[in-house]
């Protein structure tokens, strides 16, 4: 969205967050009714997500566009590195915890 539609990064990230919410709503109820949600994992994830969402909403308004893009790319790079390592059985969190 950012490059193809030339939207400002704040607009594109807000739109994608909103769309993720709508699409997730359709499947969340299904997983819940199937009993596929594990409370011991879901609980902490929800609390962390709410805190992150609050912090992120404040950050988006405070940080200028250019730096926000840099922050976003850096976060994604870090996450993708962690995922790639996890695929090979290496866990970064173990070293840091």
């Amino acid at each position, binding site marked *: 969205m950012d490059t193809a539609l030339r939207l400002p990064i704040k607009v594109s990230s807000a739109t994608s967050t909103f769309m993720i919410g709508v699409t997730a709503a359709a499947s969340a109820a299904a997983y819940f009714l199937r009993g596929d949600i594990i*409370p*011991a994992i879901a609980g902490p994830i*929800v609390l962390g997500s709410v805190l992150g969402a609050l912090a992120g909403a404040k950050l988006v308004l405070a940080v200028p566009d250019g730096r926000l893009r840099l922050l976003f790319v850096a976060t994604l790079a870090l996450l993708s590195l962690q995922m790639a390592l996890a695929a090979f059985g290496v866990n970064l969190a173990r070293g840091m915890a």
Partner: protein
Amino acid sequence: MTDLPHDHLERRLARTLGLGTWIGSTVIAVGFLASLRLPIGGAIEMAGVAIFIALPVLRLALMLATFARRQEWAFAATAALVLLIIAISAASSAKPADGAQGRSRPVQRNSAVTSISPTMAALNAGRPHRPSRNPSTRLVSSRAAMAS
């Protein structure tokens, strides 16, 4: 026309979602703390998760009612369509869980999750063990997977 109707809806939605998020977070936090000592903690956490799942649905219902009252039928129809899709997806996948909570087929579940989200696929790839059938051991193995 002292007050734009658009404004009103947005503010009401924001208040509903904000309040719901706080209530849900509180319930989950209470459940999480309770789960450290009591066996019912998990159930309280699930109630909190249910609140979070209900929030966007509530939002859609609120929008549908507001658009219908304003007689903006195109928007009302869109909201109704999304609600319908959620209802269908919930109804169609609720069947296997009838009276068999936690007895879902792990292989099928994993493939469904993988097809929906690449993130989950990556997480599953990093997981040393497949979740087992029994909910309690599944919990333990997931915890072990998270710890390792």
